[in-house]
């Protein structure tokens, strides 16, 4: 299964390059001249308070949301003119799921495996996210944590070279977090660049290599976790100070 996640060819330096990204909702500028990069084989955590612009930034990188200005290159391709070959190598886990309540686990995972056509076996994927016993259940019958893992499975159907994961551990119990952490580690081990938006700073400190901290739509910090937490400082304290 792990071979599925191996990035075979890399003709570009970073998995993601964001330059001077601006996103506006009417008169409100939600993301203001944000620039950062995400490397292959690393977890880049996008952190910040509610309304800092994390989800807007991720959605622009996924191609869901249109930027007012700036450039986004995903796997070397401009997101505004991305083709299906590149699209098929991008894993997306939306904050709000994107799954209908009557969708069954195995059926939808299999459908996504067909759409991405990356050779991922649906049954293995369902087992990997710990939903084998719940494979016939509908989304509405799953617990919060199971729903998150269902949504994560759809992202993994792409055997991604870059994965955008928006709050993957929100509402997930300890065992579920452990499982998701393991899946992210597998992705990174296979060379995938993971971009992770989260409120959970302990989680970010544990799994991320780099943190981009957004505050009021702007980049407040952009550095490695090792640098940010140098001298035994906790990431939570660093982020709190930067977003005060």
């Amino acid at each position, binding site marked *: 299964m792990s071979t599925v996640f191996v990035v075979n060819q890399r003709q570009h330096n970073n998995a993601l390059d964001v330059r001077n990204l601006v996103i506006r909702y009417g008169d409100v500028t939600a993301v203001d001249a944000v620039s950062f990069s995400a490397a292959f084989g690393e977890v880049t955590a996008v952190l910040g308070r509610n309304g800092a612009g994390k989800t807007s930034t991720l959605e622009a990188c*996924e*191609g*869901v949301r249109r930027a007012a200005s700036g450039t986004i290159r995903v796997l070397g391709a401009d997101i505004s003119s991305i083709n*299906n070959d590149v*699209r*098929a190598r*991008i894993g*997306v886990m*939306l904050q*709000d*799921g*994107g*799954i*209908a*309540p*009557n969708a069954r686990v195995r*059926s939808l995972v299999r*459908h*996504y495996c*067909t*759409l*991405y*056509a990356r050779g991922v076996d649906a049954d293995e994927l369902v087992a990997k996210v710990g939903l084998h016993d719940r494979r016939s259940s509908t989304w509405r019958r799953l617990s919060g944590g199971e729903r998150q893992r269902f949504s994560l499975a*759809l992202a993994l159907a792409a055997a991604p070279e870059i994965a955008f994961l928006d709050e993957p551990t929100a509402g997930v119990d300890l065992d579920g977090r452990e499982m998701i952490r393991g899946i992210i580690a597998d992705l990174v081990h296979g060379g995938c660049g993971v971009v992770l938006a989260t409120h959970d700073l302990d989680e970010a400190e544990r799994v991320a290599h780099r943190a981009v901290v957004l505050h009021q739509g702007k980049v407040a910090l952009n550095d490695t976790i090792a640098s940010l937490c140098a001298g035994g400082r906790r990431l939570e304290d660093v982020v709190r100070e930067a977003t005060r």
Partner: protein
Amino acid sequence: MRLVLAQLRMELTTLVRNYEQLLLIMVIPVGVLVFFGNVAVLPGSITLTRLVASVLTLSLISTAMVSTGIATGFERSYHVLKRLGVTPLGRGRLIWAKAGSVSVVELAQVTVLVAIAVGLGWSIVELSWWRLALALLLGTAAFAGIGLCLAGRLRAEANLAAQNGLYLVLLALGGVIIPVDDLPDGLGAVARYLPSGALAEVVHASLGGASSGVWLFIDAPFGAWLVLAIWALIAPLAAARLFRFDG
């Protein structure tokens, strides 16, 4: 093409599992045709050909507008469309798959309803298949456009109410159940500009029924064809402009 077919299969599987939609698109039209085809409660002016035309019109509005509109509205509110939009399927192929799903359902509806109508004693001899196909194509474009305008703008619950409300108004007052000629003068004049009345009229003409009245200053059935064609052009354009994938 492979992705469109995969999504089409998913759309049809979801439809078959949704009992409310099956009731709307198959059980109600079949029930109406069987009941009114056997029980003589309709005025004498409503012939069996007129009844078949009304039921075919009703079934098309049920599928193209109400069923598609409600399902799409909920998919939009659950962000299903947004999620599918960032897969290799993309938005364009998603729309083709949905159009294919509507076509498959309508084909099944027409087959079943025509078979039942023949069983009730209706003669198929006068039926013009190409005219009926053109009428259903234009009707589908018009009503799917209207349904998607609502689904792409309103909250899911408001969309549900609006689709059902519009459905009932069009059935009762839009020239579907009661022919435009039999409506009171004011209502009849309005119904001659609606896609429902025009569709019922052109379907009736395609089945070999006699046409009457004036539509857009042109005698039926050509006037009714023109009204329907205008709706078939305007409604999808409006939907393309107004529809928002993210709810």
